[in-house]
């Protein structure tokens, strides 16, 4: 096909479950490209000499390279090409903010729409898995050195996968009973099926990574004790798992959740399947979700699926400032989430039994830009109003869980208690201790956590090669 014809092909839409139907089930929303759609979409890529998209990718996937293979129908080859730099394409194809990364820079986006890089990535990873073509690489003989990885989120999984292939003995210690970090406890099934995460974890196990779940480092063993037990290096990928509350009146009323609790109950503990599963969750009819990021969208859409009549998304800035993936904002709107933008909660109202019955909000307007460059919302005097609710989910960000930092002497942290680590290597202030992902950057993205893991794996390898 010549270039002109290629330019004429429109961006292939993603087949999806219908909004009304999916708003009441937990099945995945996008259904995935067919091989034909994928090949057609792949032809839209004009194979730039200096592909801008690759610069937008935090792990520099060879995007034109894998897309060529897709256009040729070599889907397995395409998956292998991505895996040269990105170990979790089935995850990233689903959750990366492509519109702010590769697809933002794609030249096709200047005149028309960018190539659907994320959808293609997802397609080839799913194709490979479904074909049973995920092969376990040859693992080199052990170098006789042991590495402990604390936390099994995307960052820890990446470090473990890289180091085992370099011949180290790797053990992951995970506090929860299931590995995967936010991928299992935070991001809902309808956006990232847990079977995909389980397959990735299984792949690591098959390569020989030991995974010790239900082990809270800082409690059952400190970092120093891990060294005493014979580990030669430790990687800290403990994430940003500390819930943030607004410290406004009524926040401890029954029915007010942190997003972490709400999503953990639903995702990790499968409360949406209660009573088949034993963990309950409040199935509110009128739910307010506070925040504008991915966590807020996930909470709001979960509330809808649990049977709410109204889900109000209360966000203090305007739509343009919402940090959530654009696709998820669209999905949420299609599913009937009611947005109360430029609105800030000031207190929760309770009844005599200690249950939340209302949330009082204040309308805002955008003022001067703040430190983040976004225009600061300022309250409009006298604009208070009350929304009747029976459940609220606070999704305004996360902080650093202090368990490891407080039990590791000499480990430097910043003023928010995140671990200070070199960006290129993950090296912390302690010899042999590396860190990366959300515990260093604060809540960020899956791909940045993976990128940090990849860099740290290289640095740990170098450290252990030179260490006597």
């Amino acid at each position, binding site marked *: 096909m010549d270039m002109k014809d290629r330019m004429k092909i429109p961006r292939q839409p993603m087949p999806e479950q219908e909004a009304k139907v999916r708003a009441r089930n937990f099945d995945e929303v996008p259904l995935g490209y067919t091989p034909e759609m994928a090949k057609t979409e792949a032809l839209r890529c004009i194979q730039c000499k200096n592909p801008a998209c690759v610069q937008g990718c935090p792990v520099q996937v060879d995007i034109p390279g894998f897309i060529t293979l897709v256009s040729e129908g070599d889907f397995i080859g395409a998956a292998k090409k991505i895996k040269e730099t990105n170990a979790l394409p089935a995850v990233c194809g689903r959750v990366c903010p492509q519109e702010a990364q590769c697809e933002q820079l794609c030249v096709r986006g200047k005149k028309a729409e960018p190539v659907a890089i994320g959808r293609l990535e997802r397609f080839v990873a799913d194709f490979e898995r479904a074909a049973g073509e995920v092969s376990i690489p040859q693992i080199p003989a052990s170098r006789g050195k042991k590495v402990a990885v604390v936390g099994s989120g995307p960052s820890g999984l990446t470090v473990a996968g890289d180091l085992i292939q370099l011949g180290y003995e790797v053990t992951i210690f995970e*506090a929860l009973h299931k590995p995967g970090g936010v991928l299992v406890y935070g991001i809902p099934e309808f956006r990232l099926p847990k079977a995909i995460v389980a397959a990735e974890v299984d792949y690591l196990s098959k390569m020989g990574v030991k995974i010790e779940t239900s082990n809270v480092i800082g409690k059952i063993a400190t970092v120093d004790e891990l060294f005493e037990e014979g580990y030669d290096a430790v990687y800290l990928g403990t994430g940003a798992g500390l819930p943030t509350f607004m410290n406004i009146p009524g926040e*401890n*009323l029954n029915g007010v959740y942190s997003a972490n609790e709400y999503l953990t109950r639903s995702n990790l503990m499968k409360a949406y399947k209660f009573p088949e599963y034993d963990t309950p969750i409040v199935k509110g009819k009128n739910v307010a979700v506070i925040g504008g990021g991915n966590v807020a969208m996930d909470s709001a859409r979960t509330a809808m699926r649990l049977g709410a009549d109204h889900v109000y998304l209360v966000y203090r800035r305007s739509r343009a400032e919402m940090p959530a993936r654009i696709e998820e904002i669209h999905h949420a709107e299609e599913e009937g989430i009611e947005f109360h933008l430029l609105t800030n909660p000031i207190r929760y109202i309770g009844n005599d039994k200690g249950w939340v019955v209302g949330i009082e909000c204040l309308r805002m307007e955008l003022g001067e830009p703040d430190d983040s460059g976004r225009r600061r919302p300022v309250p409009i005097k006298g604009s208070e109003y009350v929304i009747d609710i029976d459940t609220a989910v606070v999704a305004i960000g996360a902080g650093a869980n202090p368990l490891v930092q407080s039990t590791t002497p000499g480990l430097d942290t910043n003023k928010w208690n995140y671990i200070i680590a070199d960006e290129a290597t993950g090296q912390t202030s302690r010899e042999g201790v590396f860190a990366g992902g959300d515990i260093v950057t604060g809540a960020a993205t899956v791909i940045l956590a993976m990128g940090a893991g990849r860099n740290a794996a290289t640095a740990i390898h170098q450290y252990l090669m030179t260490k006597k």
Partner: protein
Amino acid sequence: MSAKILAKEQLSENVFKMVLDAPKIAQKRKAGQFVVIRIHEEGERVPLTIADADAAKGTVTIIFQVVGKSTGQLSDLNAGEELLDLVGPLGKATHIEKVGTVACIGGGVGIAPVYPITQALKNAGNHVISIIGARTKDLIFMEDEMKAVSDEFIVTTDDGTYGFHGFVSQALENKYLMPGTKIDMVVAIGPVPMMRAVCDTTKKYDVKTFVSLNSIMVDATGMCGACRVSVGGKTRFVCVDGPEFDGHQVDFRELMDRQKIYLPEEKDCYDHYCSCKHGKGGR
């Protein structure tokens, strides 16, 4: 991490004791800490205080009351069977030091968690007054164990079927505080109304009182905030900041409300479990 059940014993109508094979936790745990268990794939994460541990044998002991489906199912397991997950030790350890005279108070199933603390306070050289109580005689357990680590010892029952007739808080006040016994510190563990009653009493006499809170938990690592309580007007997480707090600062009313969040669901779940257990229905 799974854990084998080594022994099981029924202490009273609804209270069971289990000894678990958990060498690492046995070595690490300190008085006041707890574990979280999960019994099967669909199960909840259930926090339970470590009632005792033997570092040499590599065992930890849990004591629990059957209050719902999860504890019911736990009580159905027998020696030789395994818990799917066991994680610990969690929470802050009790700060143990010699302060002089201490009163250790356990109400109902709270006798179990107060035991290791009593033992540790005794070992630290304190003069230990123990008061354990329950609704009625049959619900009293660990009497001998508690006696063995106490200098003075009182049992109370609400109905007067055994020992002092009345609540533990009344025994503390009538027998000690009112007559003027100087008590330097009180540790009280049990149902919330009991802990509140003890705190109301000790406040009058200005005696420092610690309580161990049993709030609803999910992860028990400080990640979710399900366990939050107000202490001195500040929100604290029981699983990592506690479980022990200054009882005079705790908002018991809020704690009681929060413990009721899932009552309807728990009841449904438990009724279903009971009817299954008694052959009236199936999953």
